[in-house]
Each structure stands twice: as C-alpha cells, then as structure tokens.
C-alpha cells in the first residue's frame, strides 16, 4: 500500500547524490524486483477491479536511481544473489534484465539478447512472478512463497517452450491497458489515450531493444511507462475508494474507515491541481461592503476582476461547463460562483447570461481595452435612454410577432419590413408619424436580429430568446474585433485573397466570378454592417473592410460618400486590382449619385477581376418597389 513506507513511494524526494552513489548493487536488485512486480507481467498479483484498497507499491525513486547506477557498479562487482528455490539463482545484470523484468527471451537474434552475440550470463528462470531476490532474501530463505510460485519455480524453462518474446510482452501490456479501458471504455478517455501512448512506447521498446546494449536504459524506459500505469491506477483506486466511503449526514461529510490524511506540502504539489482546486471557505469570500454597491458598480468590479486575472475566464468557463453538464440549477450556480469567486464576479457573469452573452464577450472586451465603465454600459440597461429602450422593447415585440409568421427562409431577405408589421400598420389608424416610427423600429430590430443570428450561428445560439441589447452588444463587440483584425491585415494579403476568389460555384451549380453580392444596408460606418460582412466569406469581408475603414471622421463628414468609398477601395486593393463603382443596379435604374442610409443598399462583389461596389435603392431588386420610402409614399397617395 502506498504511503506505508515513504521510501517505497514515487513521491519520495530523491536522496542526495552522495547517498545515491552509495547504493549497492543489491539495492538495485530490489528496484528490479519491484519493477517486475509493478509492471505486472506476467502474473500481476493485483487486478484492477480490486483496486480500492489494493494499490500496488510503486517504484522508489532511490531504487530507480539505483537501477541506473547499478550497471556502473555492477561493472566492478556484479552481485551474485542466490535464492532458495529450485531454480538456478540468477545474476542480475544488464544481460539478463529481460528475465528480471519477468519474461524470457529466445536467443534467436531477433530479440537480440546481448548484442555482441554472447550467451546469457545465466539460465533463464521460469518463475516470472517469483519475487526476485532482495537483500533480505539473499541472507534468508523466502518467507512468503506461495505454492503456486513454488510450483512454477520448480518448472525450469526449456529453450523450446515457455518463453516470452517482446510480442508477448506487448500483448500482455495491451491486456493491462484493456483493463484500464474497462473502467472507462470511451475511446476518448484518458485510459485509452494512455493505452495508445503505452502501445507506442512498447513499439519503441521493441525497436530499440535490439540495438541498445545498455539494458539499464531500457529499464529506465520501462519504468517511465510503469510510472504512468501506476499513477493512473492510483487515481482510479483513490477515486473509487473515496467515493465508496463518502457519507453525508446532517450536511457534514465523513468517510467510513477514514484515516487522518497526512499529505506533505511537497507531495501535495505533485497532485494535479485541477482536481484539488479548493473552493474558498466562507471566510475567504470577499466580504460585502458596508455600503451595498450599486448594480453598475458591482458589474464594474466584476469586470475588473477578469481584467486583472484573465485566467479567471478559463476557470469560470470550465466551471460553467461543469454546471451545465451536471444540470446545476441556475440560482445555485450563481450562489456557487459568488461563494467561490466573489459577489462581483458572480454578478458580472450573471449579467452576461441575462444579456445573452458569453464569456467570449468579456475576453473581447478585455482584448479591446474596454474600461469597467464601458463594459458595464454594454451590459447594464441603458437607463439614460429609457425612451429608446421602450422603443426597442416595443419593436422587439412587433418583431417577434412578425417572426412567428415569417418563413425562416425568407429572413435572408434583408432590409424588408416584416410583413405582419407592415400589414398591421397599413390597416390601423395610427398617426402617420407613429406608424412610420414603428415600421422603422421594426425594420431596424429585424435587421439587427438577422445580423445577430449571422454572428452567433456558429455558436449555436438563437436570437429568438435574446434581448435586443444583447444582440447589439454582441454585434458591436464582434464588429469591433473583426475590424481590428482587418486593419491589421496587410493590403497584399487582402489582394491575394481577392485574386484567389475569382471562381466560385453558386448554389445553382453555376460558376460565378467571385463573391456573392453582399448587401450592405445602413450607414457605411456601421459596425454591425461590417460585422455582417465579416461573417461572410473572408475574402468578401476583407473587401468590405476596406470600405469599413470609412469610419474615419473624414468619411463621415464627406458629402461624396461614394467617392470616398471608391477611393478607399482603390487604396486598399492597389493598382493591380481595378476598382469600379456602379451606381445603380442595372441600366434601367436611375444612377444613384449619393448614398443615404435607409434608402440605399451597398454591395460589394468581385467581377471579372474587378472589385465592384454597387449601390442601389432598397428593395428595388425584386421590382416590388417596397422600400420604406416608396411604400409610404404610395400609402399617402
């Protein structure tokens, strides 16, 4: 059992070099004996199902060192260690290490017993699971020989039979791995991974065995494999045992048969940290200030915690996954987070959830250098804009009503007012201005929702259950991030992207030249639009990004927006790619001489080697003349 003898654990700190140097060859033999038992081939005494409470001794570090030192010392004096059995007492040396490891070799050259072709120094011994001699054994007869072991020991091995090759060893280790995998049969389990790892090591062992003279190095190699096995088994055994002993009474945890745990600090560090991360005790939870913080202050402090400790993102993300995986109730989640990470952090995480955002939103905010105040603004309801909020809420209701009646496929048709909203507004006797405002709001919300869906589709999120503010926040953050990325992209790379995108197959199987048209609705400096663009093909997004650079004050103040866009595109793509601005969708349409938000859409495509910027009236493409302005113009008439 582990821990009973500190000297027999892998965790035992290595002794000093001087002490190690004095280790005798007989001690080395102990190490080899342990290895034989530890490796468990053949005839491992302890099977995995009996793991709890049946752990195996590991190889002592000092023994491992001794085993490595042994060949050096053995060169001078190889110990003759006799065993009181019926078989010939083996010499433990590099040459007979295979036997010491518990299997026999056929000296057929393939397995390369002594590479120099000499015969083994000793006769192979058959009792593979017979304990190898210890220092004590050398001085006294064995005390605990089982009848079985004695019987095996009494059966000398012949050269023709009862031998074990590396292939057999590999098979045996495979069997050991299979035992581990029985405990966790998933192919992706850690047991399977370790099994694959060990398989690879065995293959390497086989390969190297023939060419390596120094068997102690092979032994070291084998020990490394064994250490993996041992620790793995220990983890399973410890888990199984603790789980079986776990009792909860009156809210208190106890363990049947519990012994006072004694864990030295140095040893505790060797335990994987993730498993033993301790939730802070109640006294460690940040105390609540006497003056309760406002919600915004709490959120700001929560955000600040993430800024000061970015690792918190990963940790809370894992904890959240854990909560979800095990269906921890939401209110309980919040409580746990508060206890573990403080009320401010928990409040911030909670606000994120309510906002429909995830932790990636935080990481992006941090990346972009948002202050706590800014982050709070993005999460907290905009109290100062109550009117706008009300409009959004109202519009959202309208949109949801519309969405319920709208074919999802039709939602790709952007920039059209949801039909249900239009019909209702066309028939009811609301003041004209109010109808127009409602339609505008509905259109805006629908557009934003659509953009949001595009943004989050890869995240498996749906906009249907998310508040509008969350959508806007997500869009802003995404757009900002992507714009930053875009601006960091060298023009040459953009150009290469453009050039590489000259041929695509559209959904009808028709080869087209470059990108599908990107509908750009709204202000050219809108981050949402840029975001939508960036979510499409990278090439297209890069091109749109060129236009997105028009976020500069220069562009905003320039009356000739199309001219600026044209210039920016040329500037972005350089002289090698021609840039053409088409004003108007087709020849029959009146040229558009200026761009107005809400009246025109802008599209960018790549056609015949040219980057084409198209500007057209909203809704004119299908001939329905259903753009916002014309609709109400007709109604008024």
């Amino acid at each position, binding site marked *: 059992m582990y821990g009973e003898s500190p000297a027999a654990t892998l965790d035992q700190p290595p002794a000093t070099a001087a002490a190690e140097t004095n280790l005798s060859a007989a001690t080395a033999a102990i190490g080899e004996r342990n290895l034989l038992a530890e490796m468990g081939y053949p005839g491992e005494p302890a099977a995995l199902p009996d793991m709890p409470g049946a*752990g195996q001794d*590991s190889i002592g570090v000092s023994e491992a060192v001794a085993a490595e030192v042994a060949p050096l010392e053995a060169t001078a004096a190889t110990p003759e260690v006799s065993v009181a059995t019926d078989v010939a007492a083996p010499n433990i040396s590099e040459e007979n290490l295979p036997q010491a490891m518990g299997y026999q070799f056929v000296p057929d050259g393939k397995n390369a017993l002594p590479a120099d072709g000499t015969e083994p120094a000793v006769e192979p011994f058959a009792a593979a699971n017979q304990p190898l001699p210890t220092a004590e054994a050398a001085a006294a007869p064995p005390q605990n020989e089982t009848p079985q072991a004695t019987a095996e020991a009494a059966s000398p091995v012949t050269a023709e039979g009862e031998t074990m090759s590396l292939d057999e060893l590999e098979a045996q280790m495979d069997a050991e791995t299979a035992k581990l995998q029985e405990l966790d049969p998933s192919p992706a389990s*850690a047991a399977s991974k370790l099994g694959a790892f060990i398989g*690879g090591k065995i293959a390497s062992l086989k390969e190297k065995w023939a060419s390596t003279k120094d068997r102690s190095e092979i032994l070291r190699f084998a020990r490394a494999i064994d250490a993996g096995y041992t620790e793995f088994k220990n983890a399973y055994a410890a888990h199984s045992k603790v789980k079986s002993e776990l009792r909860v009474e009156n809210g208190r945890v106890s363990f049947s048969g519990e012994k006072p*745990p004694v*864990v030295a600090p140095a040893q505790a560090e*060797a*335990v994987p940290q993730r498993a033993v991360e301790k*939730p802070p005790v109640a006294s460690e939870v940040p105390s609540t200030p006497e003056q309760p913080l406002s919600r915004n202050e709490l959120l700001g402090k929560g955000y600040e915690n993430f800024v000061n400790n970015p690792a918190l993102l990963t940790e809370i993300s894992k904890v959240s996954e854990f909560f979800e995986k095990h269906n*921890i109730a939401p209110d309980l989640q919040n409580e746990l987070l508060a206890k573990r990470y403080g009320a401010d952090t928990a409040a911030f995480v909670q606000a994120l959830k309510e906002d429909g955002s995830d932790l990636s939103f935080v990481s992006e905010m941090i990346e972009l250098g948002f202050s706590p105040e800014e982050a709070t603004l993005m999460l907290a309801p905009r109290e100062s804009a109550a009117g706008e909020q009300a409009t959004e809420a109202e519009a959202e209701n309208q949109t949801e009503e519309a969405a319920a009646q709208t074919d999802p496929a039709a939602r790709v048709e952007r920039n059209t007012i949801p039909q249900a909203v239009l019909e209702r507004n066309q028939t009811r006797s609301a003041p004209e201005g109010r109808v127009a405002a409602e339609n505008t709001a509905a259109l805006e919300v629908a557009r934003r929702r659509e953009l949001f869906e595009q943004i989050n589709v890869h995240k498996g999120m749906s906009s249907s259950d998310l508040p509008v503010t969350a959508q806007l926040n997500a869009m802003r953050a995404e757009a900002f991030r992507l714009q930053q990325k875009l601006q960091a992209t060298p023009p040459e790379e953009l150009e290469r992207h453009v050039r590489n995108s000259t041929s695509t197959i559209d959904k009808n199987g028709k080869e087209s030249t470059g990108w599908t048209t990107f509908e750009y609705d709204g202000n050219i400096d809108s981050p949402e639009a840029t975001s939508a663009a960036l979510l499409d093909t990278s090439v297209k997004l890069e091109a749109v990004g060129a236009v997105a650079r028009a976020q500069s004050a220069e562009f905003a103040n320039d009356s000739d927006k199309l001219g600026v866009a044209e210039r920016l595109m040329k500037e972005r793509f350089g002289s090698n790619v021609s840039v053409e601005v088409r004003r108007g969708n087709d020849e029959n349409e009146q040229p558009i001489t200026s761009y107005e938000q809400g009246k025109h859409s802008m599209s960018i495509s790549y056609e015949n080697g040219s980057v084409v910027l198209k500007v057209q009236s909203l809704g004119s493409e299908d001939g329905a003349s259903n753009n916002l302005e014309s609709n109400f113009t007709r109604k008024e008439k």
Partner: protein
Amino acid sequence: MAATQEQLEARYREFLVQFNASLPAEMSDAERETALKKALDEALATDLENLSVRHQTEIGAQADATLVSVAATPADEHAAALEQIRQSIAA
C-alpha cells in the same frame, strides 16, 4: 513524481470537504451526496486527463530522449551519461 493512492485519497477527501462547505445549507443530504459524487467524478476525469497528457509529454519525451541518447552514445561515454542522469534525478 507520481502521487500515491493514499495521497490522492487524502486530496480527494479534502476536496470533497471543501466542496461540501461551498454547497448551500438548504441542500438535503441526498442532494449533497449526489453533488459531491459528481464533483468527485469530474475531479477524477480531470486528473486522468492531466495524467495522460503529462505522461505522454513529459515522461514519454524523457524516455524517448534517453533512448535516442543511448543509441547515439558510444559505449565508453555511457558512464558519463548515466552519471548525468543520476545527478539530474538526485538534484
């Protein structure tokens, strides 16, 4: 260095006690036990994953490096190489 079974048991117990303290007071014993066992399972899974990775990356690499070293080292230099290994372990 590998953690022993007893060490791991002790740490798991400590973990469970701590985790239990973080659970809401109103939880029933049965709920508490379920939550604790789930947490323990999760801890084991994480441990195993970490162990697997660690053994593959660290111990595996060391073993490979040792073999490469052995294969490339002339016999008369083996003693020095072994001494280096011994010292590195003892350090």
